[in-house]
């Protein structure tokens, strides 16, 4: 598998009235051809800003990409000119967003919103583009696509709108689809349908996917690799099964422990990690997780740990690197006892 995207040392800041927000702090990751990368982390951990930086869609001002490289198809996207970047967007890299309600333009028909991409990037005339748009809508499972293509977004349900977003994203057969929490705003059954849809289309088109979510459980059947973000950093990066089996970063362990497991007798949501993420304006010097970490040692408060390989392909940014598998086992055992 060839390397499709490689991000090195990405750093994004927002200059606000209260000070500089350190939203993304030296993030490096890659995506291979055909691979699906899952990105998890709490709200505000910098998932969206990282991906918007890759797309160069950070509002400027107040945002600024202060450092880094984004290698894609042999070019550093942060170095190419605006016009070249525009040709990458929607064509080579597509992005879909969380809220399909507000992500589509309310006053333009679905047809207009899909065909404009086809006309722009593939040079189709309007008839060709319309025919292709209908095919795309069918492909994402919109019934009666021939008629519904002339509707407006508000005439569709949330799930259908997200399908439209996907159709729009896939219109030009991008090499990479970045999906920023595309199912968060949908109810559970629709969520599963959308995940299945993206999986199917990914395999048909042979594209790579970056899937952002809060929900580690959702990634189990979808992602090949997962990166875990905290306070604008990647704190753990691992092949998906390895991560579930043997998480090494205390934050990831916490995340996994807060997933309700279907095979458990008690199904209530287990406690989330206590405490709050650090202030991104007054960024801490040591490990940003230290105030919430039950494994913290003195060093943690002074030096921020680098991301280091703990086993093949598995990286963690932690001075202590507890054996997650063991802890989780103990934790579950004690938890089941308590409830008996």
């Amino acid at each position, binding site marked *: 598998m060839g390397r499709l995207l490689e991000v090195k040392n990405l750093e994004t800041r927002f200059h606000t009235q209260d000070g500089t927000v350190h939203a993304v702090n030296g993030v490096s990751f890659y995506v291979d051809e055909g691979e699906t990368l899952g990105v998890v982390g709490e709200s505000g951990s910098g998932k969206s800003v990282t991906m918007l930086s890759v797309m160069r869609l950070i509002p400027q001002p107040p945002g600024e990409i202060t450092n880094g490289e984004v290698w894609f198809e042999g070019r550093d996207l942060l170095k190419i000119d605006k016009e070249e970047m525009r040709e990458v967007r929607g064509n080579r890299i597509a992005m879909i*967003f969380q*809220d399909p309600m507000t992500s589509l333009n309310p006053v333009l028909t679905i047809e207009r919103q899909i065909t404009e*991409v086809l006309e722009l990037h593939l040079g189709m005339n309007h008839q060709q583009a319309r025919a292709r748009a209908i095919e795309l809508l069918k492909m994402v499972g919109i019934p009666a696509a021939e008629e519904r293509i002339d509707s407006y977004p*508000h005439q569709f349900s949330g799930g259908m709108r997200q399908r439209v977003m996907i159709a729009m994203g896939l219109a030009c057969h991008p090499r990479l689809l970045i999906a920023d929490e595309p199912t968060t705003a949908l109810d559970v059954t629709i969520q599963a349908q959308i995940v299945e849809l993206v999986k199917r289309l990914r395999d048909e088109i042979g594209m790579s996917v970056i899937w952002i979510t809060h929900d580690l459980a959702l990634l189990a059947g979808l992602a090949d690799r997962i990166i875990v973000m905290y306070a604008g950093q990647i704190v753990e990066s691992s092949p998906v099964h390895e991560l579930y089996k043997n998480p090494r970063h205390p934050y990831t362990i916490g995340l996994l422990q807060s997933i309700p497991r279907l095979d458990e007798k008690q199904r209530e949501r287990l406690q989330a990690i206590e405490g709050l993420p650090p202030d991104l304006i007054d960024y801490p010097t040591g490990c940003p997780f230290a105030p919430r970490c039950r494994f913290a040692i003195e060093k943690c408060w002074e030096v921020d740990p680098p991301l280091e390989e703990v086993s093949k392909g598995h990286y963690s940014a932690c001075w202590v690197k507890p054996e997650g598998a063991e802890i989780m086992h103990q934790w579950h055992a004690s938890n089941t006892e308590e409830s008996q």
Partner: protein
Amino acid sequence: MTAYLVRRLLWMPFLLLIVTFLTFVLGYYGPGDPAQLLLGQHSNPEAVERLRHELGLDRPLLVQFADYVWRALHGDFGESLTMARGRPVSDLLKRSLSITLQLNAVVLVVSLLVGVPLGVFAALKRNTWLDYLTMTGVVVAISLPTFLIAPILLWLFAYKWRLLPPGGWNGIFSRNIILPVIVMSAGPIAVFARQTRANLIDVLSQEYIRTAYAKGLHERRIFFVHALRNALIPLLTILGLMLGSLVVGSFITETIFGIPGVGRLAFQAFFSRDYPVIMALVLLIAIGYALANLLVDILYAFVDPRIRYQ
């Protein structure tokens, strides 16, 4: 939506009837008796009584009202009592209304054609000195009172430099119209410019605009196809108010520039207590606003699919 509009349309006559009745009642019980007004303060009470009978003023209120409505439906609003004694109100109204309508229509078009592009420009250059300059100009324009700016312009352009005629009405393609239009457009231009700018800046931060960028669209297309239309929709409400006031003449401007429009007519009618004229004017304004409201609703449905398909 269509059903809603039809309902509105059917409601309109009732609405107008109510407005007419209210003004009629006010006129009926209000101070000043038309017959007395006609004959003068110190006239013979018997003569006044006779005139009241002749004018039908001694009939019950509802009979008089029905009579008034019946005539009004045939375009007869009675005769002027004081300001132009004996002339049919409809004549007075026709002439001044045609002038005011033309003048205000020009003002409306100029305001839109100048105000909206100014707002777009400011939004495009937002937070640069060009934006600040435009918006400062707009604030100044909105806060200058007509009674101040009109005489100054008049003095400068008509008397000092002798570039433009001092006033009068010569149709919309004459040079006489330039000064009044400038004076009357300043406020609306400012309102349109500010609203357009604010709406555009708001729309540009919406998620669907980010989607448009993520699709790789040209900035021009994003601005003019994806953003502008959404930003202009709320302007319809302001437009509606202005459309409603098309029939309302500006007292001050019309008086200063000697334009015989509705504004001046109303001014004179009020001060000479010319009830038939006043009533007709009130009715006219009510019709104007009702029609404008309806038109705005239709326009909304036309430009905003979310409303069209309700």
